[in-house]
């Protein structure tokens, strides 16, 4: 019964190609490969393999292939290997099954059933190579109306504007806490955000002092554990985000295991080395919208009303009503994280079963805020499984002001979405605090790759916008006429507020 069931992969090695260079042995943090000097052969323990593809990528002679095992149990649509293996593991340990990254089940993606529009004949498309295309986005509360003053033929704005975040591209890096990811990753995100004129989110683990110089491009997070929250931290960020929930684990807290709390993490989180960093499920000073308002205004007082305050929630059944409450509580930005939102560690049962798809959440929140006449009071930022610029544009057309990306950003710097972030042994040096493994991320190269990704996406967005005959992202925001659905029921179409393709 105690057999190690492994992860369902086996390692195939072409012995003719293998030159015994031992790169695979050195690179694998899961001890899959070992060298048998007697027989001069490298052997792989399949059950340790997590299919991160690190050895495959770095093998100089392409000798390694990792294959998924065909179901080891009798094929059964209902009782898949995943279910059987989980039960066996729990029967042995009595624990909750942990996992990393976002929900991997096929059912919850609407992006693929939504299509974007383009102009043909009746209104010409715009050539983005020739015409200026505007992606500039401002996040924050907008006034109900503008008062202008005219003096000596000069016009000036009388209305005092709320603080805004200025984004060159409507994509930001979502919360990745220092501790969940390594310092090099945090640094790359910070530098890429500052180079690309957008923002990165510190996550709830504080901001290392060495990165304070990128504070102008940082959204600093305040979560239930309040790790690393001190006056400097609030001063240095461009905006403050109160984290209520996370798409991968709505309603539950997080534990950064003590093993990951080394000297640097300890200093930044302001907790002793080696202790668990526990973020309780709720913020125990927030049990209501009124309490939330209290924290929002405490942070506004602490930042002299000079920074937008964001509130991040997981998209759940009553998101629309909750978002309305959040806006009325004084938040300048509402951040929604859908069921596909990623995590460094969460119980699998919660990741895969709790929350709602972000597409439906955007549509319902945007509609609710419009119906109540308070949509201008806050910007909507969404996240949770944004894979490409098409998803970005669809999100914006559904009503988002900007999107958060995290998984895409990590993939850009090496992640292969093997879902083992919670072990702290990330072979790509991303989801780890091990000083040896984290060196695998070169901040220079990672920064470049992130900047490239944003550049590529922004060009694609401009190209699609041009095709629609629209030259400013502002004109797509909440413009659901630009969307059509396929393979969706009437009820789904009306919830999304879009028409059927062909209509």
């Amino acid at each position, binding site marked *: 019964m105690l057999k190690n069931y492994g992860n369902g992969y086996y390692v195939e090695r072409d012995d003719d190609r293998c030159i015994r260079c031992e790169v695979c042995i050195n690179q694998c943090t899961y001890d899959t490969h070992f060298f048998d000097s007697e027989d001069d052969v490298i052997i792989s323990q399949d059950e340790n393999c997590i299919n991160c593809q690190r050895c495959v990528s770095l093998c100089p002679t392409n000798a390694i292939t990792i294959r998924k095992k065909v179901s080891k149990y009798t094929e059964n649509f209902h009782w898949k290997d995943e279910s059987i293996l989980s039960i066996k*593991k729990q029967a042995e340990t009595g624990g909750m099954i942990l996992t990393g990254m976002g929900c991997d089940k096929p059912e919850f993606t609407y992006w693929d059933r939504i299509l974007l529009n383009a102009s043909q004949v009746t209104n010409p498309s715009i050539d983005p190579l020739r015409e200026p295309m505007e992606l500039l986005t401002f996040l924050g509360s907008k006034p109900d109306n503008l008062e202008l003053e005219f003096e000596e033929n000069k016009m000036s704005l009388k209305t005092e504007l709320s603080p805004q975040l200025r984004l060159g591209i409507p994509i930001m890096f979502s919360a990745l806490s220092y501790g969940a990811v390594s310092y090099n990753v945090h640094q790359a995100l910070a530098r890429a955000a500052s180079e690309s004129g957008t923002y990165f989110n510190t996550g709830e683990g504080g901001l290392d002092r060495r990165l304070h110089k990128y504070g102008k491009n940082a959204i600093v997070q305040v979560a239930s554990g309040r790790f690393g929250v001190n*006056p400097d931290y609030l001063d240095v960020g461009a905006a403050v985000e109160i984290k209520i929930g996370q798409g991968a684990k709505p309603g539950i807290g997080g534990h950064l*295991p*003590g093993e990951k709390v080394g000297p640097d993490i300890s200093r930044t989180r302001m907790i*002793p080395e080696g202790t668990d960093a526990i973020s309780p499920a709720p913020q*125990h*000073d927030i049990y209501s919208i009124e309490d939330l308002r209290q924290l929002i*205004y405490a942070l506004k*007082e602490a930042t002299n009303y000079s920074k937008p305050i964001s509130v991040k929630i997981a998209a759940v059944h009553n998101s629309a009503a909750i978002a309305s409450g959040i806006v009325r509580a004084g938040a300048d930005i509402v951040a929604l994280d859908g069921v596909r939102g990623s995590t460094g560690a969460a119980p699998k049962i919660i990741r895969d079963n709790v929350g709602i798809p972000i597409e439906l959440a955007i549509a319902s929140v945007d509609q609710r805020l419009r119906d109540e006449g308070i949509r201008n009071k806050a910007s909507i930022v969404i996240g949770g499984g944004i894979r490409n610029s098409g998803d970005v544009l669809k999100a914006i057309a559904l009503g988002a002001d900007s999107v958060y990306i995290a998984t895409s950003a990590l993939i850009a710097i090496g992640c292969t979405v093997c879902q083992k972030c919670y072990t702290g042994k990330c072979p790509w040096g991303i989801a780890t605090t091990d000083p040896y493994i984290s060196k695998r991320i070169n901040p220079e190269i990672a920064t470049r790759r992130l900047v490239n990704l944003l550049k590529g996406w922004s060009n694609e967005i401009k190209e699609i916008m041009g095709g629609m005959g629209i030259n400013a992202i502002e004109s797509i925001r909440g413009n659901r006429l630009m969307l059509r659905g396929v393979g969706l029921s009437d009820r789904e179409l009306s919830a999304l507020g879009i028409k059927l393709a062909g209509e």
Partner: protein
Amino acid sequence: MQENKIILNNQPLELLNGNLSSLSSKLYEYIKLRKNAIEINAEGMHYRDLNYLIKSISKTPKKIILRNISGQRYIGTKLCENVIMEIYGTPGNDLGSFMDGAEITVNGNVQDGCGNTMNRGCIMIKGSAGDILGYSMRGGKIFVRDDVGYRVGIHMKEYKENRPCIVVGGTTGDFLGEYMAGGILVILGLNLEKEKIHNIKYVGTGMHGGVIYIHGEVTHTGKEVEMKSLDESDKILLKGLVMEYCKYFNIINSNEIIKREFSKLIPVSTRPYGDLYAY
């Protein structure tokens, strides 16, 4: 401008930029200069105006006296060292949140959320405090003469020399020291009846660091804590805090308080939830 006439430490008082205040034209009506202090009459004043005024003044360190405070929130937010503040009345929620070194004395009770995520400094309350006192406090001290509400000292944490500390003269509500990750909580139980029982539940649930010293019986604790008797180093620590408490609140029999029996609550493990998961 009229406000420039207020001179602090030989410099005219400058108001912070970018803040809207309806008060700037009639500052004189609210501010009085005393010999060693600035006095603000906060009667009927909105918290935003009041805090704006305090922030402007605290740029030039001086003692600040607030009179007629009634429920204004966020007083002393992020207030830095070198500021000494005396409050008369009842400050509202979140007194001294994110505070960074100031010293606040309250002549009266305080409401909820006092010392929220406080970093450094000291708050002395000559009365009782409401719920969630010292939430996630990471440094500094809070002394409460009488009782405190629910969820006090939740998630306090310490790092190296930053060791937050709350001393309560009376008794507390439920969930004392929940998720406590560091720091010191002292409950003196001075006003307990003869049976000396604290009517509180869930003390130290999820606690994984720090220590609670308590006089009087506690019957209901979280499963994550164990009760111990004090050793010599505990006694020295406790004595210092009790002396400080007595000094602030003019209590003469400090020795008698120290001699009473205290128990110590500490976490069973620094990793209470380590075995919850299957890897």
